[in-house]
């Protein structure tokens, strides 16, 4: 196909870019200990939480932004961000007790995003926690889950209702000292989701959080904590969107997963934050720390991510394989177009014996975008018979894009087997011609090839999400081939 034909194609609009006009209750811009005290007070937190937040804040003051990722952005002014923004009708102790009390405008917003929150309309088998700017506004199917002893609620609620669980597990996988953005999150996080699945319980439905940034000049700092007790299992989905704005907005979340003996956690993300426009104006800075720990034997954690949004993505969902026989998996599709930048990958830390990890990372780079895989596979001396297999492929769609692969492999045990393979190539002209000669339009041909390229990852997603992910990829790639 010719470049002229390509340029004639019109880039699709970001369909989730609308703004909800709702009364906000922001704190003043900027960050100091008073702001943190206010966040904690607004949420009615116990003293241990405020104490933890303040320690995190004081640590954050001593840290610098990490500079090693292959991403570039103007300096972030941390004093010009609103650290807390909540819809007036939903924040803090005003949080509605039931869906009937939720501001109809919020319900309409989520409906418009394709996430109906009224249970009778909701997807059967998916419980949703909806986070709007800084707070969780609604959680569906709570009562049904409670009968099984499963706790699925907003983080704020968990702090109030289950302080012992929070105290025991918060920061136990990602301590507040972990990195610059994790420290910041620990100091100011406003809400997020909390899941506890008790011993032996298999959660019967998908749990899901839908994150929405709405307010301007605000940062979103949510925190998710998922605990699967012995023999428990849970599948968790996460989706996110934000309005189109010319400014960059910071999203610095932390997710901690804890899988005890024989437990299984499957965490899937379809990340579609506003990516900025075709010239690279605006978009979300997605600086996220996600880590899971297989704390007991035979535990199993799977991360699956489809990353199509954000101006900059910086995230490395990781697994600490502490329990013997535990398994960590990471399946990722990262697509960057226009001026997007992604530096993403995973860390697999093998500590226990007979631990296995699998990494499948697919990067697609188009326009002027840059896409890097960065990963660490570390086998400690005690991890007898550890196994890792990593497959890392990049597809290049334009002469101006960039694709990088930065794997780190560190092995201290001779019975380990670690294999890493990576390839980078252009989307095949011959393949495109072959498909077009069968009557497929060039866009369909590209989509078919890209979907084939990503198949290993998509098959790890729950059904509805896989369909969504395919559509998202097609939309994000419109006008991308060159």
């Amino acid at each position, binding site marked *: 196909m010719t470049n002229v034909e390509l340029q004639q194609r019109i880039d699709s609009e970001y369909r989730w870019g609308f703004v909800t006009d709702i009364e906000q209750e922001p704190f003043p811009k900027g960050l100091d200990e008073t702001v943190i005290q206010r966040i904690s007070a607004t949420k009615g937190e116990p003293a241990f939480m405020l104490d933890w937040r303040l320690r995190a804040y004081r640590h954050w003051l001593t840290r610098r932004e990490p500079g*090693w990722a292959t991403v570039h952005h103007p300096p972030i002014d941390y004093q010009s961000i609103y650290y807390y923004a909540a819809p007036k009708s939903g924040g803090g102790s005003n949080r509605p007790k039931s869906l009937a009390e939720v501001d109809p405008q919020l319900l309409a917003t989520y409906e418009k995003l394709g996430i109906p929150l009224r249970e009778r309309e909701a997807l059967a088998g998916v419980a949703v926690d909806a986070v709007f700017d800084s707070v969780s506004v609604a959680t569906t199917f709570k009562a049904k889950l409670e009968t099984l002893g499963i706790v699925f609620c907003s983080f704020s609620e968990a702090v109030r209702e289950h302080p012992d669980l929070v105290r025991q597990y918060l920061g136990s996988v990602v301590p507040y000292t972990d990195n610059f953005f994790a420290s910041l999150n620990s100091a100011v996080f406003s809400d997020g989701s909390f899941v506890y699945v008790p011993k032996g319980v298999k959660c019967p439905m998908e749990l899901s959080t839908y994150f929405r940034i709405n307010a301007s000049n605000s940062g979103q700092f949510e925190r998710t904590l998922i605990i699967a007790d012995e023999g428990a299992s849970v599948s968790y989905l996460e989706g996110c969107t934000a309005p189109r704005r010319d400014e960059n907005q910071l999203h610095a979340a932390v997710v901690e997963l804890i899988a005890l003996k024989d437990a299984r956690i499957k965490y899937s993300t379809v990340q579609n934050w506003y990516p900025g426009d075709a010239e690279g104006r605006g978009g979300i800075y997605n600086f996220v720390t996600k880590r899971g720990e297989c704390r007991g034997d035979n535990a199993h954690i799977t991360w699956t991510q489809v990353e199509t949004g954000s101006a900059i993505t910086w995230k490395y969902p990781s697994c600490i394989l502490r329990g013997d026989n535990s398994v960590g998996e990471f399946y990722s599709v990262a697509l960057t177009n226009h001026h997007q930048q992604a530096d993403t990958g995973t860390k697999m830390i093998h500590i226990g014996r007979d631990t296995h990890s699998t990494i499948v990372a697919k990067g697609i780079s188009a326009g002027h975008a840059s896409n890097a895989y960065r990963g660490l596979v570390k*086998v400690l*001396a005690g991890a007898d018979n550890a196994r890792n297999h990593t497959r890392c492929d*990049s597809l*290049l*769609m*334009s*002469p*101006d*894009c*960039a*694709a*990088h*692969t*930065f*794997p*780190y*492999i*560190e*092995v*201290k*045990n*001779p*019975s*380990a*087997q*670690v*294999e*890493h*393979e*990576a*390839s*980078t*190539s*252009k989307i095949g002209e011959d393949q495109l011609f072959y498909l077009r000669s069968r009557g497929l339009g060039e866009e369909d041909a590209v989509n078919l090839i890209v979907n084939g390229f990503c198949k290993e990852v998509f098959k790890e997603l729950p059904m509805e999400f896989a369909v969504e992910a395919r559509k998202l990829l097609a939309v994000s790639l419109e006008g991308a081939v*060159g």
Partner: protein
Amino acid sequence: MITPTAYREALSRIDAPGKFAAARQSALEKFLQAGLPDSHLEDWRYISLEHLERMPLHAPADPPLALPALEDYPGAVLAYLDDRLVWRDTTLPATMLGTLADAIGGAAATSTPVAFGSLAGNASLTQLNAALWREGACLRVPAGERLRQPVFLRFAAAEADAMLYPRVFVHMAVGSDAILVEHFVGDPDIEYWQNPVTEIVLEAGARLTHLRIIEDSKLATHTGLTAVHQASDSSYRALNLTLGGQVARHELNLVLGESGAEARLDGVFIAAGRSRTEQHLRITHQAPRGNSRTLYRGLADARGRGVFDGRVEVRPHADASDAQQSSRNLLLSPHAEIDAKPQLEIYADDVRCSHAATVGSLDEDALFYLSSRGIDADTARRLLLEAFIDEALGLLDDTGLRDWLMPRLRASLPRGQAMEPLS
């Protein structure tokens, strides 16, 4: 912060012509300002040079304290001892093969090689070499000329705690062809530090086969740099063997600067005892139709640590670039470590790049199979190790140097507990 006295003292003892004295002084100041590289630098995350700061390093005595027992080399030879040329055995004219000091500054200087100093970059260790190299070596092969015999450069160390700065410049003119062997050795019982820099320019269509063998003392530190620039349709084939040294790091910066250049980089490293070795490769595809193949095999035994850090960068418009990288490694002891960092950095779209890295151990099934055929366990192990590294030794046949090299390589292979040397 490093104490500058030893370095200043070393510089004061170099009798350089005036036009170079200033450059040397400035290079030394740059080094002193930057200091030794440390683990804060991404390129030095695995190898530490801290021990150098505790050593009583000094410039070697002049003239050298002892003359070495020379071994036979199947080709032309320049042999250096403690940075001084002590033996020359070649029929090549001095304009083709001689000391670098003569080539660029001495009475016999014809013309200063144009690219001298321009490839090596300005890392702090390179600055130090630029300040303190002594005689050096220079190989210049004229256009169309094909050297019949390999050229051997032997850099030996004999004085304890000496700092040595071998410096080599190679210029391969249009269509020339040669085999170069750099051999780094040292008195087995002493500590010293070799910090060599070799620059290689390949003009259009030139071909160089380059063997580089680190066989330094088990107590030595070796931090070497090879910088190569390739013009169109030139061919650079290298075999890098790291068999010795307590700390041995080799950095290879290769630029495929014009279209159609081809590079093949093979290597074997063996980290035994408490040694640390690092192979640090930077391959830059700057022009279209470049082809690079990297094939390294690594072994880590006892408390050894082996590092493979290879990066391929394809610059914008270097279309139809093809880069393949393979790093396979074996861990032979519960206390050994292998780190691999194969990287691709791609800024063009019409490329075919891949890398593969593995870390594992000797195949138990294969060992058992060989034992079941009556081969004792140690022999079986050695057979498998030899087979494992052999994939990277193809150049030995192409250069006819297999017979010369294999005994050294075998001697360096990790032995089992009660290993009898193979006959």
